């Protein structure tokens, strides 16, 4: 199947910027396992990754990590 006409839609789909109809059609097409489009979408995800990282990295307060690890340790602790 020739999918070149979808070329400029992959990033927009990943961003949620397509119209609902276009998004539904593309999702259904991908779900049928089109190898060309899956490869292209994976490549498009690289572009979206670049865009998402445009804000400057910001170090969160150390308390946030401590709380996270405490929550996880509580989940994994054996029940008595």
């Amino acid at each position, binding site marked *: 199947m020739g999918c070149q006409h979808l070329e400029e839609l992959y990033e927009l789909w990943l961003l*949620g910027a397509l119209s609902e109809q276009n998004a539904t059609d593309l999702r259904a097409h991908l779900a049928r396992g089109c190898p060309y489009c899956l490869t292209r979408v994976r490549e498009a995800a690289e572009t979206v990754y*670049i865009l998402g990282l445009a804000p400057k*990295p910001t170090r969160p307060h150390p308390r946030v990590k401590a709380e996270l690890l405490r929550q996880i340790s509580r989940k994994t602790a054996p029940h008595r």
Partner: protein
Amino acid sequence: MNEELSPEDLLARVARQDVAALGELYDRYAPRVYGLIVHVLPARDDAEETLQDVFMRLWNESPSLSQEGGSVAAWLVAIAREAVVDRLRASRKNAPSLGPHIYSTGPEKASETVARKSKTPPLPASNARHLERIGEALKPRPANGVKNPAIRPVSPAVLPRPKEITLIDDRLGLLHKAIKELPKQQRDALELAVFGGLSESEIAVETGEPLAKAQRSLRAAVTFIKHRRRAVCGTWAANI
């Protein structure tokens, strides 16, 4: 923790319930993930809670994610973006503005452009409606002949491979410089799509531009960055 371990090695350990390995991934990626989150959700409590949610999801989903072989960094960024969109939807009554304008070098923010040009209600309200529609659109729907009806923009199946992300990380500064080279109209459209979560048609409404023009701006911006990525990362021998 061994500094030599790759993120994917660490993920495999996380999948075996190694809390220290999760802590190591957090140390490596929390600043960039938090940078994205706090850009969209400036309220510190919301931003910190969202950051914890993202890493809690990593903990919970690590077994399946580890099997897929996708990039941990790309997954974290995709999930963080999904999480802030969910947050905005949940707080639709008081949805925040777009925050500081990352892509533009000029003094005017995209949200200010919107305020100047828009013939429609202010951004936050329509933003919330749009985010609701996105959430709806991303829900898995069964369809005849569909092998994997649950495929979504954040599915591990469509995650970049670790090798590609390492290549990008090494050249991230150069790639972000390319964003600043875009014409202002294109940068604004990109900002509204990436950090405002707006669709092409909503960008048109918000900026007061015809749909075709808004589409052209956004698609041209995305295509430019895509071509730059291919050229800078050596995956495409384009002479641009």
